[in-house]
């Protein structure tokens, strides 16, 4: 590509970006408008769908309640604890299994078998053992997100260039410096992908546990609001949970960019 084309493309880029942003906002406005018009005009019964303005009012009122922030904190704490545990466990187990060929072939079938077991199958068990305590949510969150991390780390370790590995071996690198200088840098992009996937899955399971088991948090509040017929509040809380989800995705992408600043996959689209 000649520089000429490159620069003109980049010039066009920012104009396009601006246009895209305007269009994006327009899309959001349309959805909000529909949300206001449909229940107001009676096309959708207001008992089922609250108008946008009422949801917004309810949301504003909620932000002033201490109880809301307690739930909010409980959800985030459960999410973060579970995610941190599964990141550590998944990475450590993944690097160990991945760098020993014997272990890798021994565990492959078991991992493939355990991974698709839906974590919600464990709900009855954790209910019996812990009831609606935060531990119940923690077990589900860790179980679900552990596999996301582990599998990515295993891919990452398998991706190490055999020539580099053999070179390091012939230089008699110790096991630890092998992990630190050869395996880790190759596996890191995969670890970060694992983090991104696990962050989203962890939030889903945290909310599920709150909703179904009654672990304290935003999910439980949604269930209570729905069963007591507080329609605008139900929607307001769902929107909060959605925004938390968006924040989690954005955060994961920021972490990805920061951790992999040196990596070609990120440098390419910065440069």
């Amino acid at each position, binding site marked *: 590509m000649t520089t000429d084309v490159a620069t003109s493309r980049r010039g066009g880029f920012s104009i396009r970006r601006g246009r895209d942003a305007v269009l994006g906002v327009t*899309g959001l406005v349309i959805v909000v408008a529909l949300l206001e018009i449909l229940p107001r005009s009676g096309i959708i019964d207001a008992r089922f769908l609250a108008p946008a303005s009422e949801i917004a009012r309810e949301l504003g009122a909620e932000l002033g309640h201490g109880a809301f922030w307690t739930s909010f904190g409980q959800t985030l704490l459960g999410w973060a604890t579970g995610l941190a545990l599964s990141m550590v466990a998944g990475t450590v187990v993944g690097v160990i299994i991945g760098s020993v060929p014997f272990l890798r072939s021994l565990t492959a*079938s078991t991992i493939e078998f355990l991974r698709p077991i*839906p974590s919600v*199958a464990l709900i009855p068990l954790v209910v019996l053992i812990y009831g609606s305590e935060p531990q119940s949510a923690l077990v589900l969150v860790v179980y679900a997100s552990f596999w996301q991390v582990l599998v990515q780390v295993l891919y990452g370790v398998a991706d190490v260039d055999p020539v580099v590995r053999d070179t390091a071996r012939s230089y008699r690198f110790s096991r630890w410096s092998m992990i630190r200088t050869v395996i880790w840098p190759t596996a890191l992009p995969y670890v970060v992908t694992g983090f991104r996937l696990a962050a989203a899955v962890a939030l889903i399971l945290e909310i599920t546990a709150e*909703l179904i088991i009654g672990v304290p948090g935003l999910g439980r509040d949604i269930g209570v609001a729905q*069963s007591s017929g507080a329609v605008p509040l*139900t929607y307001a809380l769902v929107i909060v949970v959605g925004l*938390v989800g968006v924040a989690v995705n954005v955060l994961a992408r920021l972490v990805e960019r920061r951790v992999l600043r040196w990596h070609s996959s990120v440098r390419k689209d910065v440069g």
Partner: protein
Amino acid sequence: MSLRSVAKQIAFALALPVILVIVWWFASAGSENYFWPPLTDIVEAFGETWTADKWTGDVLPSLGNLLAGYLLALVVGVLAGTVIGLSRTVRALCEPVLEFFRAIPPPVLVPIIALFTGFTGVVPKIVTITLGCLWPILLNTVEGVRGLDEVLLDTARSYRFRARTRLVRVVMHGASPQIAAGARQALSIGVILMVISELFGANRGLGASIVQFQRSFAIPQMWTGIILLGLLGVVLSVLFRVVEHRALAWYRGLRRAEKEN
């Protein structure tokens, strides 16, 4: 592959599961612990619990809901994703909205849909599964269509392929690896939602049965339900892989050829 290496592979694949089951068998053998009954009891309960009646009354309807919801999401997701992916303007218009809907954890759909219908009967469950599975398929299709080679599209146009041929043969085909990735994510979400939709307000179905066992403290039976769900999860993911393997055979060949060059 020689017979020896095949045998070795099989041995490796079976070794750990066999060890784990043996450990479970003996560790739980004389178990007095209420929550962890002996594996012998669970195995015994399995046959008694999941009779033909139970299969036709609970398991198959659950799987039917899953299949209906999933296929619906697949059709709607691929169609809408193609439309959104092909036009830059439509994409820019929809992107923030889609990002938001994707970020909503799918289980909160259950109380929302319950507001509308009270969550009895089959339809709300299928709708829940469809809405949950839709986003990964839709967004991956958009990505796949967007990532298509411009030259390929232009070539197809200049050869005057009919619009329909172009859409199916070039666009959908080219995006299919991405679509498959989305469909795989959607499948596990679908299984989760199948169970949750029954935990929430149903009296029939696999999830509902497991909860009934748990509430009536039929612990070995509850364990058989958990194991059955696990087995179903595994079978579904194997089935998915078989279908994907056949559908994407051309793609693997292409990758292999690229690697060799």
